[in-house]
């Protein structure tokens, strides 16, 4: 048990949010330490090489939400970050047809018309609404969520900003916004489109990563978490980070180190040291102790407070609220090394949409049934997946001529039910294989030769993601994106501005406003809050729109 240097600030966890916070603290002149339990940095924003020659983005896999203000401010491109937009996507049907989501506007209109001419107009209305909602929400991402019960001038001014923005919408749009924020993605799409396949193609974005079904109210909002991003200013566009998602963390890590920060890998936090209601530092799993008056946890709120802080150091109400916070594992991940590009018999040769997100779900009911399975502790027998082959665009991901495929699978429970017992321990090699077989059978709808192309595959269940990354239940958002866990309720009412009941301790991960996705907004917002509290608020940009 060694005593080490004293720091001004310690960040526990080197995920993209933790690193973002760390960057800003270091740039403000704080002597900052990041401690990470794994031997690599990145958390769920990571590139891993599990088989020679291939690189997997084995958790998060595409990039769009990363706030461009942060990318520019931290000069991430200088540290190697390059985001390459991809075009389009498609949903394949069992009868050999497909719906291609093409980025060229006219081509997309023709493709929609091929399925249903009436849906062409519907699409125009749909995208208008979504873009409008994105524009409405984007300015809030890099601001604090105001506490409506507070009379504090900062809360009042944030609240006023919200009211002003809402007022600016006018009566009609305000009504539509209220509806949009509270309705289900299924109902929203049913209001617009007639074609099941088109609805199914879009609906996935409303449920990815959540413990909700396409007909659960609130999922239309989740859609925004997939549309409000941009690549180089193109709102709604998605891209691949060259070299995998780890490129984002590596750039953040390099920026942090250039600013004078230190990263210790392979040493997770065992305990946050608290004395008299004040944080004093951290004790690592290896017994090392690091001291600092400011400690920020990038771990999710449950893991932070229920596993690494003594209960006695927390008010009972707070602990109860944390216990009640819902972080539900609902998705699995397959990363597959391919010996060459699989055949997509339904698609035209060389179709560019194959470089985008591919699916095999064909109706909203199919997606809803997939959710029903999950509620009972089973993986979906007819799962939804979001599948991409980034190596088509980024050749660094696989050896020449070979490819890498990432498959995000929904739904897979954290606590798998086997013989009536629900437990994460039920995820064994046998159940993992059964899940993989189920997914591969469905992938074969789009590419029948998928099994022949596989050189290696990694199957990651919510349980596995929790074990490796540390995310509770392997939930990608560090907490469900439901109304009761957004804005001033995220993660705990009264502690929605990155602060905690422990003096000097902060939470900076996606458990906080504005939530998950590789956005880095929570990390940046938290840094701003920390710096403000120590009188250095001016040392980072406010980003306030």
């Amino acid at each position, binding site marked *: 048990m060694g005593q080490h240097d004293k720091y001004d600030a310690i960040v526990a966890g080197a995920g993209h949010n933790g690193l973002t916070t760390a960057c800003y603290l270091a740039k403000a002149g704080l002597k900052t330490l990041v401690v990470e339990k794994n031997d690599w940095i990145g958390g769920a924003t990571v590139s891993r090489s599990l088989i020679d020659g291939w690189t997997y983005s084995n958790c998060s896999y595409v990039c769009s939400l990363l706030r461009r203000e942060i990318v520019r401010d931290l000069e991430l491109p200088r540290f190697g970050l390059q985001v390459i937009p991809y075009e389009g996507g498609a949903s394949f049907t069992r009868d050999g047809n497909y719906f291609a989501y093409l980025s060229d506007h006219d081509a997309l209109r023709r493709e929609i018309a091929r399925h249903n001419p009436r849906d062409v107009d519907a699409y125009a209305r749909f995208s208008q609404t979504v873009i409008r909602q994105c524009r409405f929400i984007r300015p809030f991402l890099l601001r604090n969520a105001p506490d409506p019960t507070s009379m504090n001038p900062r809360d009042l001014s944030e609240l006023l900003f919200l009211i002003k923005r809402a007022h600016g919408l006018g009566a009609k749009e305000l009504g539509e916004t*209220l509806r949009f924020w509270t309705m289900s993605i299924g109902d929203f799409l049913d209001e617009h489109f007639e074609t099941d396949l088109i609805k199914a193609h879009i609906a996935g974005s409303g449920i990815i990563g959540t413990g909700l079904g396409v*007909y659960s109210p609130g999922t239309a909002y989740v859609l925004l978490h997939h549309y409000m991003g941009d690549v180089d200013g193109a709102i709604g566009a998605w891209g691949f980070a060259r070299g995998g998602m780890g490129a984002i963390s590596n750039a953040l890590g390099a920026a942090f180190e250039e600013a004078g920060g230190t990263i210790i890998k392979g040493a997770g936090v065992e305990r946050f040291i608290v004395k008299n209601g004040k944080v004093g530092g951290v004790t690592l799993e290896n017994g090392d102790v690091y001291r600092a008056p400011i400690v920020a946890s990038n771990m999710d709120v449950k893991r932070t407070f229920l596993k690494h802080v003594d209960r006695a150091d927390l008010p009972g109400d707070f602990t109860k609220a944390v216990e009640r916070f819902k972080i539900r594992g609902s998705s699995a991940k397959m990363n597959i090394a391919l010996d060459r590009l699989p055949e997509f018999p339904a698609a035209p040769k060389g179709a560019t949409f194959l470089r985008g997100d591919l699916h095999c779900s064909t109706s909203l009911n199919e997606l809803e049934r997939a959710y029903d399975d999950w509620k009972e502790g089973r993986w979906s027998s007819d799962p939804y997946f979001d599948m991409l082959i980034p190596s088509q665009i980024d050749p660094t991901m696989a050896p020449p001529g070979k490819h890498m495929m990432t498959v995000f699978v929904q739904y897979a429970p954290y606590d798998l039910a086997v013989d009536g017992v629900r437990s994460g321990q039920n995820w064994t090699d046998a159940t993992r294989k059964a899940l993989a077989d189920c997914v591969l059978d469905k992938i074969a709808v789009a590419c029948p030769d998928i099994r022949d192309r596989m050189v290696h595959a990694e199957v990651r269940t919510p349980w596995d993601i929790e074990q490796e990354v540390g995310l509770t239940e392997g939930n990608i958002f560090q907490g469900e994106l439901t109304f009761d866990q957004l804005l001033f309720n995220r993660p705990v009412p009264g502690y929605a501005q990155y602060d905690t009941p422990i003096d000097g301790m902060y939470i900076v991960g996606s458990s906080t406003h504005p939530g998950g996705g590789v956005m880095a907004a929570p990390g940046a917002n938290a840094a701003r809050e920390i710096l403000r509290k120590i009188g250095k608020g001016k040392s980072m940009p406010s980003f306030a729109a």
Partner: protein
Amino acid sequence: MAMSDNRYDAIVIGAGHNGLTAAATLAAAGKSVCVLERSDRIGGMSRSVDLGGATAPEIAHLLYNLNPTVVRDLGLGTKVPLVTKILPTVCLSPDRNHVLFAQGEATFANGAVHPDAAAFGLLHGRLTRFAALLGQMADGPPPALAGGVLDAGTLKEMAALGKLGWGLKRLGKTEMREFLRVILSNAYDLILDEISDGPLAGALAADAVRGAHAGPRSPGTVFSLMYRLGNGGEAHLPIGGMGAVAAAFETAARNRGVAIRTGVRIDHIIVAADRVQGVLLEDGTTIHADAILSSAGPAQTMQIAGVANFDIEAVRRVRNLRHKGTVAKINLLLDAAPVFPGLTREQTAGRLIVAPSATYVERAFNPAKYGEMSQDLVIEAVHPSLSDPSLTPPGLHLMSAVVSYAPFALTGGWTDAARAELLARTVRTLDIFAPGIGGSIRESQVLSPADIADLTGAPGGHWHHVEMGIDQILTVRPANLISRYAFGIGGLYLCGASAHPGGDVMGAAGRNAALQTLKDGVLGA
């Protein structure tokens, strides 16, 4: 009061409790009003039907949300007779260790202490307090967005909102935060965060979703639970049957001079210069009026008023309204007193809930999403004859059951075979708690949501006419820009369950719509 047989100040379409309340409210302000009812009977969902000589509640069977202002205005139970009996709730358990609750106190039916009693009491108390705050909003139109959020309409409305805000503030910071956290949340998590899953949790979950196209895991079901608790939530059984409720509303309206015509079919609403002029009946009669208040659904109202008279956005919004009815009504005439092992006869007279767990309720909802009825049904059953023997011939008993989930759009349609299957499943479910009950059934009546739609005109056979989802309540009920009773054409108003605050035998929508009509001045001073 009528100026002539065929000229009134206002016409009300539909003689359900909301239509009658609207009519009585207008008449109290000195207006001449005629209520037109398509069916031969008054009462809509709150009326009685004959079943083998017994007086059975045709559709609704309990009152728990009657609006106190409506009760006072109409003199229900004072000027007009209406007697009710409060029933405790009995959460049936397959192991016969049933749970009882009344006014937030839970015990086992055998008197033993329930382990979750304290937590349940706190949860119930909190929900009831929150619900009472929300309940205040039932007495007026929903907040306006006319000039954006900074314009809450008139001072009076501002005061109503202020009252809500003040009420919230008075709860204290912790409770206010809790309110803001749970208000849009789902019942399943809310309940199971506090008490363990079992019959008590199941009953609460079932209360949250009864009538809705939702399972307890659907966000928004805490709101629907609070809506139910808005007036305390105690279940009242009307003595004399539900027909007594219809009669009370009818008497209140007639005493004020309201004319009521039944068996009247409206061909269309006459519109000229963007204003309603009256209605043309199918028999060729014209009735003139300056205002028409419709307690029919928005789409039906739009149909008879002429879709072309509405702007295209309104048409689209109305077409997109969701009203997928999910409850069926089953009445059973029994030739013996029902026996539920584990319950005394007095307890058997309570409101019996078959929902052994919240998980069970969610599971029951799954098939409804795909047009199938639940395998294991969620049931709210009462035995009106145990409280009011006059309802049945001597020796016979009545069970009235609200059965979920039975989707309006059943795959294959609501054929006689489908109704028989639903009855069989209901009896099979009841048999778990009352063994042999199937053998004592002398007569039965099964109303699917499709039948309820036919009988009452309720869109989709839906309890609330329009689903009480969070995207279809308050300022966006029934739809955005159609939330304050006025419905497109000058002088046309919605006064039924589809308007704010929504359904249940409440009467608030009818009263609010009438007040709005008076305020708008379409009837003159």
